């Protein structure tokens, strides 16, 4: 005969305004097995909790139901209170009288009756609760950072500096990401590479960081504190332990006309290549798609020129298995190409380029060594037009969101252009200028007032070529309301920032959710911006949404702190609400008949085979066994098991059955 204590909270007026809490307490008091029932103004307050603790001791309660706000709110509070009074915390249940009752119904008997039913339901459950102990899982104190852009670099350094091991993987041959492609950065116009490259080197030299470039995540299994990551090390075809990075091979490679990814297609590279001079590691890989040898089976000039014999032709991809405790995803973003814009010529006009391409033109390390020259004929454009929101904020283009960084970099581009081409004329077509950020608005004003960039508020309808000029047809919606037509030499589209290619597949590999645009979803838009809904996996940078460098770096450090916080404990304490396979007397040992259909049903591969052996060591039967580390407690297996041999603690068959019955049998 159980002794349940029931505590009905008024939540100030929040519950008592529509629910007759006193009556609820009285009625519940009459329920069989309820030893003590009382209502109180604020159960979560100190005196409220004391009330519960005292009752537990005084009445030797073996179960507690608190009728209050949602368990998602105060379940931990009250369970803690119970524990402090010596009652196993898992013998405490919460009836949701506020969110699910008092707040959604008018004051009436029906509302009070519902409240009574809800509490009764939980009383019946608690009667069948079992004392449970939290599960402790050891944490592997090693982090995996995916993506070597500024976000990944920052996160890796911050984690490494707390003394923990970090594995940083980058799919390209060098770390650096988009930031390494930028020329100057707003709002200070300091050189992007000048501030980035020292960080890149630091990563390469940090004792706690293991860097794998040209590597991708193959698969991810496990759970917070205990992930098993399989990493694919793509074959570089160059043994970096032997390669000195002398670069002789680069000179000799006959394949010279391959569009360079680093220069956003404006420059070219060789088949054996280092993406850019400051690359880390500064050693080449062979791009097998374009290499003569891999294409036609002959060439091998690089091998001939290599002084250290570092070329490995038949090197194959390697799969590396690493145990890690936490993961920071920093895979960044991408920009739409000009071919995304029919109205601007389907990308067929050479001198219509993306913002990223302009960065390369403006960059001292770029194909034009920092001179703004037209891709088509190399002349210096005298008239240039920048089109902001190219794709962004455009439902029709399927990209309703704001790419956030374009307003600022467009202003920067115009400014850089004016600085480099003094007699040049620049026009910016914009929807709104979104310059939220420290010194951002001032920066834009400077472009307009000091560098005399001509800002036109309006959209561009068409861009078409006519005798070597690009005719930009737009409208000035601000003052004149007139159509404007500009004969430009060059047009720069601030194309929309979009999720990086492969983001969707990566998300599925890691079981993190993503938004309709394939940006990874944070656990909470405000309060958990760096967490994902998969514990132990964190986000930083533009893979979550387009963002600028300072924001990215901030987020990366945030993620790093989350990881460090996790690593500050030796093991992870998890709720014991997991599935278990029953045991019974020999010769059955368990009612499980070992059909193992539950194995296919389990989303976490948490179900293993266990051989039950007799004294003679012979296998008597093989039954299912739940790995408490892997089981997340969804209970799919429970509903699936025909013989009801597997059950889930805290939501057991008996408990759920009793709840349903109690709701109705009157």
């Amino acid at each position: 005969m159980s002794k349940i204590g029931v505590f009905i909270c008024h939540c100030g007026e929040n519950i008592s305004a529509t629910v007759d809490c006193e009556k609820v307490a009285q009625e519940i008091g009459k329920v069989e097995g309820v030893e003590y029932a009382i209502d109180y103004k604020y159960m979560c307050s100190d005196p409220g909790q004391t009330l519960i603790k005292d009752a537990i001791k005084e009445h030797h309660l073996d179960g507690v139901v608190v009728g209050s706000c949602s368990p998602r709110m105060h379940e931990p509070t009250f369970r803690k209170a119970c524990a402090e009074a010596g009652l196993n915390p898992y013998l405490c249940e919460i009836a949701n009288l506020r969110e699910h009752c008092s707040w959604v119904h008018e004051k009436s008997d029906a509302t009070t009756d519902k409240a009574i039913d809800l509490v009764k339901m939980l009383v019946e459950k608690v009667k069948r609760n079992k004392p449970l102990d939290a599960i402790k899982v050891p944490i592997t104190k090693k982090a995996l950072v995916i993506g070597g852009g500024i976000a990944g670099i920052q996160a890796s350094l911050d984690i490494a500096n707390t003394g923990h091991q970090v594995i940083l993987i980058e799919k390209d041959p060098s770390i650096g990401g988009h930031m390494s492609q930028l020329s100057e950065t707003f709002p200070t116009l300091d050189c992007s590479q000048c501030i980035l490259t020292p960080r890149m080197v630091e990563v390469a030299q940090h004792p706690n960081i293991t860097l794998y470039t040209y590597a991708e995540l193959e698969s991810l299994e496990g759970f917070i504190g205990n992930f098993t990551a399989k990493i694919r090390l793509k074959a570089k075809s160059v043994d970096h332990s032997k390669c000195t990075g002398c670069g002789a091979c680069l000179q000799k490679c006959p394949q010279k006309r391959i569009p360079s990814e680093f220069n956003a297609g404006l420059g070219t590279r060789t088949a054996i290549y280092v993406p850019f001079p400051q690359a880390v590691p500064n050693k080449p890989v062979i791009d097998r798609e374009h290499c003569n040898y891999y294409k036609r089976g002959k060439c091998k000039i690089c091998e001939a020129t290599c002084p250290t014999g570092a070329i490995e032709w038949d090197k194959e991809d390697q799969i590396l298995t690493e145990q890690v405790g936490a993961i920071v995803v920093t895979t960044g973003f991408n920009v739409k190409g000009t071919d995304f814009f029919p109205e601007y010529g389907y990308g067929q006009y050479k001198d219509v380029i993306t913002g990223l391409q302009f960065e390369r033109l403006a960059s001292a390390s770029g194909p034009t060594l920092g001179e703004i020259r037209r891709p088509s004929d190399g002349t210096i454009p005298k008239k240039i037009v920048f089109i902001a929101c190219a794709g962004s904020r455009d439902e029709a283009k399927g990209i309703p969101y704001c790419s956030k960084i374009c307003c600022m970099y467009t202003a920067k581009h115009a400014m850089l252009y004016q600085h480099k081409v003094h007699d040049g004329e620049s026009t910016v077509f914009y929807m709104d200028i979104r310059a939220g950020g420290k010194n951002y608005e001032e920066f834009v004003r400077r472009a307009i007032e000091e560098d005399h960039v001509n800002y036109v508020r309006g959209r561009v309808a068409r861009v078409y070529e006519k005798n070597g000029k690009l005719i930009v047809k737009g409208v000035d919606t601000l003052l004149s309301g007139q159509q404007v037509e500009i004969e430009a030499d060059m047009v720069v589209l601030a194309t929309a920032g979009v999720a990086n290619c492969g983001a969707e597949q990566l998300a599925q590999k890691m079981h993190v959710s993503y938004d309709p645009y394939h940006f990874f979803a944070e656990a909470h838009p405000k309060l958990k911006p760096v967490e994902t809904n998969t514990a132990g996996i964190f986000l930083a940078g533009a893979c979550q949404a387009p963002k600028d460098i300072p924001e990215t770096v901030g987020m990366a450090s945030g993620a790093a702190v989350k990881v460090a916080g996790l690593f500050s404990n030796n093991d992870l304490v998890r709720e014991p609400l997991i599935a278990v396979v029953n045991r019974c007397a020999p010769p059955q040992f368990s009612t499980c008949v070992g059909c193992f259909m539950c194995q296919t049903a389990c989303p976490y591969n948490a179900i293993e085979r266990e051989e039950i052996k007799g004294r003679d060591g012979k296998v008597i039967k093989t039954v299912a066994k739940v790995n408490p580390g892997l089981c997340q407690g969804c209970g799919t297996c429970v509903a699936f098991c025909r013989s009801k041999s597997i059950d889930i603690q805290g939501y057991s068959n008996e408990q759920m059955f009793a709840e349903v019955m109690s709701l109705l049998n009157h």
Partner: protein
Amino acid sequence: MKIGFYPGCSLKGSSREYNESVVAIAKALDIELVEIKDWNCCGATAAHSMNEELSLSLPARILALAEAQGLKEVVVPCAACYNRLVVTQHELKDTNKRERVTDIIKMSYSGDLKIINVLQMLETYAVDKIKEKVTKPFAHKVACYYGCLLIRPHKILQFDRVEDPQSMDAMVKLIGGTPIDWAFKTECCGAGLSVSRTDLVAKLSGNILKDATERDAQAIIVACPMCQSNLDMRRGAINETLSKPSDIPVFFITQAIGLALGLSPKELGLERHFVNVKL
């Protein structure tokens, strides 16, 4: 090869030569056109901006007739009619609208009729035939002008590329012509304002002619009666807006093909043009 045929008012009136040329080349290409019996206005009048039910019911009746007459596919040379019919078929996917309209026209309507424009007809059924039958290659530099009704709303018509379409250019290449790359393929010609605001038509069509001439096109090829009449019939008014008057002729694609197939200018109604055709 049998295809249903909806001429519409223009082809029976101001743009008879379009009708003549369509019929003529269809014959030459062994395509049998079966005109929908008892057809009515497609509603590309004030109707579609004034009264939705009317603007849907008129085309719906045409479609219902075609279905009733056992046609599976109907070619609609007039871009405006083509636009109205396809848009209507799209609108009537909405059950409520469909019920309302069928109730008005008192006819059954399934909506599975295939509606195609002249270009679609040619590229699906005539490419090879044309290739083999070209006797007098149409060896001229021409500007293919698509106008608006043939392409937009792209989401619904699903025909060609919304900017810088290609299908007519392909046709022209097929008959030995050289389509130029130009900017006004889909710009507005002034359309229905032809009568009420001739001045606007003059200005807009003017821009089109200007660009075409400047890129030294010898002719403009169209697939829309409205465009043709604006560019052709309004040439006088247009030339007043131009610094240097233009005399380049405006062909229907069907006429150009007709010539290439060796049909006589007369059969193709070329003598009906305002800007006389000398190539």
